[in-house]
């Protein structure tokens, strides 16, 4: 495993060592600051079985999307957004005219309308881009600026937001002992991660948990969030997700990206939305749709180990489609071929 953003390579052996002995191997029962708690099944009050909705969504038509979101919302355990400030965090690592890099704005818009129907007091669309820091241009090119104006929601560049220091809930955390959180994230009452279903050249796949990289401000962590790469991707992903709760995830699997993602891959239609309140369970289910064994994805295995949820099939109740039935094997770079799940699992 290599990370050209840092140059560091983490061997399987080292990864095993990290799982066994690192700060993340056991999260404390102690309460977090700012009311943020590690998302272990026990602490979050969830029943041990996560509820994930796997909903067919063959296209980005507004009616198709609205119906799919309603169905997924109804059949999972959505947060109560009534009267609350909700932050919607799409994935926009970059924008391309011919490759589906960012979460489709039509899905984001349909979700915003749905949240409005559910009584959200304020909806904020927020992203901290990681490669290209020209957010004015990216927000325009992605279509997010237009939709934010059309729907009257605030659009926030998290890279330059005011910051609030938040202690990582794990006192033995690695380099993210204190996380500089954008005010927009810190003050959010509900955070909804809306990633694109993509392969990732450094992480294997990128879904809801990896999408949370984008909440950390570039002005503190650099671009492409380079401090996090040097800390190690699995550790960073787990420390962020262990400190900041994602209340709900909606994975844009209508059209995803396969091959050399998250930027240079090619479009792959999966025709689904994957939705749920536990990001790890959602990611594990989305991985299965992509033909990937989630237990072989480093950061998902680590997240499972430290009890940010469970990736085991038996711990996740999937409503709607059967992951195996809608499975579409996303093409993988050769070094990630080992992530492929055998058929029938």
């Amino acid at each position: 495993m290599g990370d050209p953003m840092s140059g560091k390579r983490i061997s399987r052996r080292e990864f095993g060592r990290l799982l066994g002995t690192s700060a993340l191997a056991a999260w404390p029962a102690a309460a977090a600051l700012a009311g943020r708690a590690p998302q272990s099944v026990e602490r979050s009050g969830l029943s041990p079985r996560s509820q994930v909705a796997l909903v067919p969504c063959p296209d980005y038509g507004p009616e198709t999307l609205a119906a799919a979101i309603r169905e997924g919302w109804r059949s999972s355990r959505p947060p109560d957004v009534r009267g609350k400030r909700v932050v919607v965090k799409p994935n926009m690592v970059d924008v391309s005219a011919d490759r589906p890099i960012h979460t489709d704005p039509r899905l984001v818009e349909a979700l915003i309308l749905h949240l409005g129907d559910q009584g959200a007091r304020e909806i904020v669309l927020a992203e901290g881009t990681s490669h290209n820091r020209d957010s004015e241009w990216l927000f325009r090119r992605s279509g997010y600026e237009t939709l934010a104006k059309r729907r009257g929601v605030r659009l926030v560049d998290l890279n330059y937001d005011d910051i609030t220091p938040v202690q990582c809930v794990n006192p033995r955390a690695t380099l993210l002992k204190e996380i500089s959180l954008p005010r927009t994230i810190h003050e959010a009452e509900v955070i909804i991660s809306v990633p694109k279903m993509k392969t990732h050249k450094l992480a294997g796949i990128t879904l809801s948990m990896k999408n949370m990289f984008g909440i950390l401000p570039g002005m503190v962590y650099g671009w492409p969030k380079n401090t996090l790469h040097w800390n190690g991707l699995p550790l960073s992903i787990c420390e962020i997700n262990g400190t900041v709760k994602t209340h709900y995830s909606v994975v844009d699997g209508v059209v995803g990206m396969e091959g050399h993602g998250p930027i240079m891959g090619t479009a792959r239609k999966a025709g689904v939305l994957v939705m749920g309140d536990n990001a790890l369970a959602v990611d594990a289910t989305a991985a299965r749709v992509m033909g990937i064994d989630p237990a072989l994805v480093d950061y998902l295995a680590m997240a499972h180990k430290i009890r940010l949820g469970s990736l085991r099939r038996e711990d996740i109740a999937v409503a709607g489609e059967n992951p195996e039935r809608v499975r579409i094997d996303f093409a993988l770079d050769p070094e990630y071929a080992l992530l492929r799940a055998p058929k029938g699992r």
Partner: protein
Amino acid sequence: MSPRLSQAADFIKARQNPDGGWGYGPGRASLVEPTGLGLLVLHARGDVAAAGRGLAFLKGCQKPSGAVGINPRAAEGSWMAYAALLSFHALGASEEARRLKDWILGFEDASSRFTKEELSAIATRFRYDASIPGWPWTPRTTAWVEPTALFIIALRRAGVPPTEKRIKSGIDLILDRRVPSGGWNFGNPYSKSYELEASAMSTALALAALGAAGVPEGRPAVGAGIRFLEKSLAGDVSTATLAWTLLALKSFPGAAALVPGTADRLAALQARDGGFRGNPFETALAFLVLSDAPILRPASWGTR
């Protein structure tokens, strides 16, 4: 000073925080980058008192090591120090400028942290030389094109010669990271066999730095970069990128024909309140570039 520029300076002055600094938006927490450029605007207008308050804020951000982080609470120095150096130098805070210059010249990136095997793997798979020292965003991490460019611009304006070892190395890094088909992105020209796209902001900053260091426009990378910017100008360009682009174009005589149109386009983005997108940083940057403020004026101008 034109009425429009004066209005931009008014916009800046009206948004100065009580602590003397500026944030990226009105009422937002003070940070070093918007403060560094904001006080340069007031200095250019001769508003000594307000500029002095900004300078005091910046001085309060400096560590005993000379480092400057993003704000007074930052534990370490980082990329925004470039803006503090420009201000310290312009306002004659010579001792602070000297200490910060020394810190910047010693600001460590990750180039010495890579093993031989890692350097080889990066060279093979990502086609750049990670052993070349440049400047990172944050300490001891990888050097990238934009922070390297920002520090080169600031050091040159603060009088550090282009023959200085770190500047020469920074130039080497920028040239090494160019995208083969023209321009620069954040710093990865390739990902495996895929050439990554250049971006206008990275390209503008890279060219402005190369110009500041006296790299001639006859260098193929410079010519290709200017052509990339020209192509980018045919489409949508953001406010900050337009300002950096104008600075880059002014740095090379061969790009002079593009300067008036780019300047007009940037000036046209000014809002009725005098600001650019309501953002003190972008307003200050636009002011400094449009007004040819000495602190950002390309060196080549003096020889024309």
